[in-house]
């Protein structure tokens, strides 16, 4: 008997130790406060504007090992996204970032192509224009309009919107490129990212001008994303954790989403839930190896955006209400971990305020995390209005 009992004790010991070192490693979530979240947002936004060039472009990336930028080419979509994120911060009340965001916008608008009826943004007059750049530019302009009440870009917004809708195929999928030479969409090329960016843009246009019919193409693309997109783009696991879809769903929360849209949203929320929980178990040692590799800062920032938008949807739609508290917990956990990763106090403007993973930061790491932290601070203020 004693041999069996000893075996039983050994099995239990190995199980508990093995599990604790791997799948049951503690989930470490540094505490966040309104002040710490706000400070981190300011530092991230400062990284963006302190490194902004005179022409309006941002520092694209920084590698601590070489104390300099990499050779990666500048990316217009990420420029538009970063500008949009700054406008989100302005909309949240940080008006001091408006000038820098406008400088970023002016640089973007200098890259306009199209005939005025439709406007796109391209790196050169004969280069292909990406749908994502136009979409995020439009989103930024809507946020700017909401923050300032300035309507000077309304015509441009509508022409960007017409460009976006012109990229839509009958099944709701979006063509990723437009050729200024052909003055037509490039057939057959789609993008995993751009479809959601485009949907968010036209959903915002509908909420800005509810009588202009922007909702029809929005519904078509939402339907496509909730049903066929992930299969067409051959992504796994499904659904792809698309924070642009989350922004779109939150923007369309009052439109009367169907049950299968909510099912899609619930699956999306689950993807970010496990992403944050898994990351929170990666704290060095064996658990670090088990939970490797660490996602880049931009990726982790998108988790915050996605969770925040799912929480916004949960607050607006009772079918999702059961997730409100858990989403809030994950948002705070993810935000706390990102704040802990933020570099501060080095005195180097290329470093301070940046979110570095493996010694590297890229501008969209600050962009996505800044957006996520803005929503985290909003949640914390809701919970403790004092």
């Amino acid at each position, binding site marked *: 008997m004693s041999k069996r009992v000893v075996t*039983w004790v050994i099995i239990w010991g190995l199980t508990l130790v093995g599990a604790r070192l791997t799948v049951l490693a503690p989930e470490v979530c540094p505490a966040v406060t309104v002040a710490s979240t706000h400070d981190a947002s300011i530092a991230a936004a400062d990284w963006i504007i302190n490194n902004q060039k005179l022409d309006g472009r941002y520092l694209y990336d920084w590698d601590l090992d070489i104390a300099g930028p990499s050779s990666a080419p500048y990316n217009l979509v990420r420029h538009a996204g970063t500008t949009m994120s700054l406008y989100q911060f302005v909309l949240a009340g940080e008006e001091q970032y408006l000038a820098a965001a406008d400088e970023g916008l002016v640089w973007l608008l200098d890259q306009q192509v199209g005939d005025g009826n439709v406007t796109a943004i391209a790196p050169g007059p004969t280069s292909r224009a990406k749908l994502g750049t136009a979409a995020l530019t439009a989103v930024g302009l809507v946020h700017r309009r909401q923050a300032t009440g300035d309507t000077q870009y309304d015509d441009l917004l509508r022409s960007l919107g017409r460009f976006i809708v012109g990229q839509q195929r009958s099944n709701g999928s979006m063509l990723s490129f437009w050729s200024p030479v052909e003055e037509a969409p490039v057939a057959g090329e789609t993008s995993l990212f751009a479809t959601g960016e485009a949907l968010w843009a036209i959903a915002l246009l509908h909420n800005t001008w509810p009588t202009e019919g922007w909702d029809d193409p929005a519904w078509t693309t939402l339907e496509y994303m909730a049903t066929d997109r992930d299969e067409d783009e051959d992504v796994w696991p499904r659904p792809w954790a698309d924070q642009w879809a989350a922004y779109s769903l939150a923007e369309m929360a009052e439109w009367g989403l169907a049950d299968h849209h909510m099912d899609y949203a619930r699956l999306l929320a*689950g993807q970010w839930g496990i992403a944050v*929980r898994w990351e929170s178990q990666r704290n060095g040692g064996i658990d670090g190896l088990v939970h490797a590799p660490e996602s880049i800062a931009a990726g982790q920032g998108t988790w915050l955006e996605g969770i925040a938008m799912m929480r916004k949807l949960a607050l607006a739609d009772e079918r999702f209400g059961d997730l409100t508290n858990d989403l809030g917990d994950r948002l705070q956990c993810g935000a706390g971990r990102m704040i802990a990763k933020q570099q501060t106090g080095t005195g180097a403007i290329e470093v301070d305020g940046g979110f570095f993973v493996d010694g590297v930061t890229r501008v969209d790491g600050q962009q996505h995390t800044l957006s996520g932290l803005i929503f985290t601070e909003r949640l914390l203020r809701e919970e403790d209005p004092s």
Partner: protein
Amino acid sequence: MNGWVAAVLSLLVVVNPVGVSRAVAWPDRTASSWRREVSTIVGAAILALVTLGLLTAPLLDLADLTTPTFRLAAALLIGLTGAVWMIAPTSPVESLDDHSSARVTLGLTMLLTPGPVFAAMAANGDGGAAAGVVSVIIAMGATLALLVARRLPEPVAIWATRFIGALTIVVAVGIGINAARTV
């Protein structure tokens, strides 16, 4: 999978009443002492599993773990337990000790393995405390019935044990997917 269904099904298959009843079916017991001993074993196992199940939330808090993360780990252990039942059904254990308490201890080592314990704790997360308690009672009730009856022919018992082991893996995959999709 519905929380109650997942709780009851996971406990029932991971305990594997057929496998346990075969493994604990010591041949040298008289009917009356046998019933008393297996009742004590099952009663003690119910007490332990229900207590651990009800303590799940404070234990997870203490260990800095969320419920879905624990359920994911539980799914892994439930699946491993199922694989063991399927590949190597435990041989009948010979009790060389005449002391009743020793036989009870031996029986408990058959029932309180990591799979059932983690399943009982996860059941509380799946369907709440009531689901946890009910699923433990159902699984242990089935085990007690089979232990007392001792009537399954050996080949049937072996293949039923293996089948339930395979079913355990399927249930574990379902619990794991559900846990992975939980916020």
